[in-house]
């Protein structure tokens, strides 16, 4: 038994594999969850590396595969990777902005055995969509969404909601109905990576949420049996944290474009962890043996108030990355929890955002769109992502 209190043979198997095939992306979403310094991370895995990762993860029991990025369509070997995944028995999900897709590729994906395509939209109106994405992509996305339907994929539309577009939630849902979506994910921005950097510009206000929620529920009711609508309140407005990733190293395994293996796609920024690379280790070793994947398994690592909290088996103390970004210590309770000694950090941001939206206070910095240039500039300005509060 290691000092983290975990027993190797009790470790669950990774059920979900998220393959971030590349950090390259033609869009520039300010809420992107990729690391700020993505432009400095080179050395993408080869096709053969990915195939080996798929084989090894499948052998350990992974059944769901997410192909994402960046924009996975940038990878010209995507068809080959999909075919391998299918042959291994994965249920394969492509998570894309639709930019770089055309009918020929959709058909090739179908032939290769792709199960499901999720197209993300930035907003419902062309103008705002293009502003948020930093490109002229909207019309193309609509075309792609129609093709997804034509090739009999389940159509999952994902709208990332934030302060700049949440007031259009009704339009967003009307667009989804027009496109005949099967599932709509009204995904609330998660404040990691670029979204964290732009948080003061993106977090919706309390009033916005109060307006949006009844509209979401009204459409859920109206579309019952026809379209499933998932709506989640941003965790900043909750008093209990999400059971992040169902627990550290419990079911999710992310492989970053350069082969770094992570328990969640934001974990790369955590200090003091080296995170193993699939170039040097097997998935089996990474998952079961590596110190980093074991670091926050079980409950021994916890501090108060989590340590003696009866709810720890339900939420595992929340998100390690959020705890680190906001409090400077990844072993603290997620400050979303109102039992956390740092919960005021969340309520202060909410209050500040309310003042900024009401134009009573200026935003601390302008919104920054994600692209290689801003990435390098930000990475040079602060070599490591510094936590809001010193450790």
């Amino acid at each position: 038994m290691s000092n983290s209190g975990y027993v190797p043979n009790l470790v669950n198997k990774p059920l979900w594999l998220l393959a971030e095939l590349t950090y390259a992306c033609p869009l520039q979403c300010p809420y992107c969850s990729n690391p700020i310094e993505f432009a400095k991370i080179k050395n993408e895995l080869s096709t053969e590396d990915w195939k080996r990762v798929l084989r090894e993860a499948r052998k350990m029991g992974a059944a769901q595969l997410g192909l994402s990025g960046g924009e996975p369509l940038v990878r010209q070997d995507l068809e080959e990777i999909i075919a391998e995944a299918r042959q291994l028995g994965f249920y394969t999900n492509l998570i894309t902005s639709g930019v770089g897709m055309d009918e020929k590729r959709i058909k090739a994906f179908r032939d290769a055995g792709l199960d499901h395509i999720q197209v993300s939209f930035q907003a419902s109106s062309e103008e705002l969509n293009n502003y948020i994405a930093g490109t002229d992509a909207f019309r193309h996305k609509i075309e792609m969404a129609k093709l997804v339907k034509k090739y009999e994929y389940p159509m999952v539309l994902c709208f990332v909601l934030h302060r700049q577009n949440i007031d259009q939630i009704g339009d967003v849902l009307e667009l989804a109905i027009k496109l005949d979506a099967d599932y709509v994910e009204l995904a609330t921005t998660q404040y990691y990576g670029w979204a964290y950097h732009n948080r003061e510009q993106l977090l919706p206000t309390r009033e916005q949420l109060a307006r949006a929620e009844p509209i979401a529920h009204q459409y859920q009711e109206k579309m019952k049996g026809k379209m499933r609508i998932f709506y989640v309140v941003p965790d900043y407005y909750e008093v209990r944290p999400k059971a992040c990733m169902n627990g550290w190293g419990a079911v999710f395994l992310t492989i970053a474009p350069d082969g770094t293996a992570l328990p969640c796609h934001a974990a790369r920024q955590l200090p003091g962890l080296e995170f193993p690379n699939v170039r040097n280790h097997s998935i089996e070793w990474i998952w079961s043996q590596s110190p980093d994947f074991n670091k926050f398994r079980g409950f021994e690592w916890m501090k108060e108030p989590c340590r003696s909290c009866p709810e720890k088996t339900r939420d595992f103390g929340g998100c390690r990355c959020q705890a680190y970004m906001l409090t400077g210590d990844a072993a603290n309770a997620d400050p979303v929890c109102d039992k956390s000694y740092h919960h005021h950090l969340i309520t202060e941001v909410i209050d500040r955002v309310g003042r900024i939206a009401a134009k009573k206070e200026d935003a601390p910095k302008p919104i920054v769109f994600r692209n290689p240039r801003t990435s390098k500039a930000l990475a040079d300005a602060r070599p490591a992502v510094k936590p809001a509060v010193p450790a």
Partner: protein
Amino acid sequence: MEIKATTRVYSAATVPQIAPTKRFQWEEAQNCWVILYPEGMIKLNSSSAEIMKRIDGRRSVAEIIADLKQAYPGAELDNDVYAFMEVAHEQQWIRPKPGQ
């Protein structure tokens, strides 16, 4: 579970197929048959799996029942199979093959 005749989608002649958005397969690591779909995985018990295995877009419900009776002689399973069809339909695991 009681399913009223009026809500019935599947009759003896209906040919069911697995919904194009779902995948039914054996999972070695789980040691059971599962249905995979965009958000996750449902593990099936063995009797559900025996029915699902026979849903191939060719056989009708009556043929599936006959086949099951051959595999499990003496079993009274008509009602169970019909009930399963309706539930599986509601869950969108299966659908009547289009164009029947």
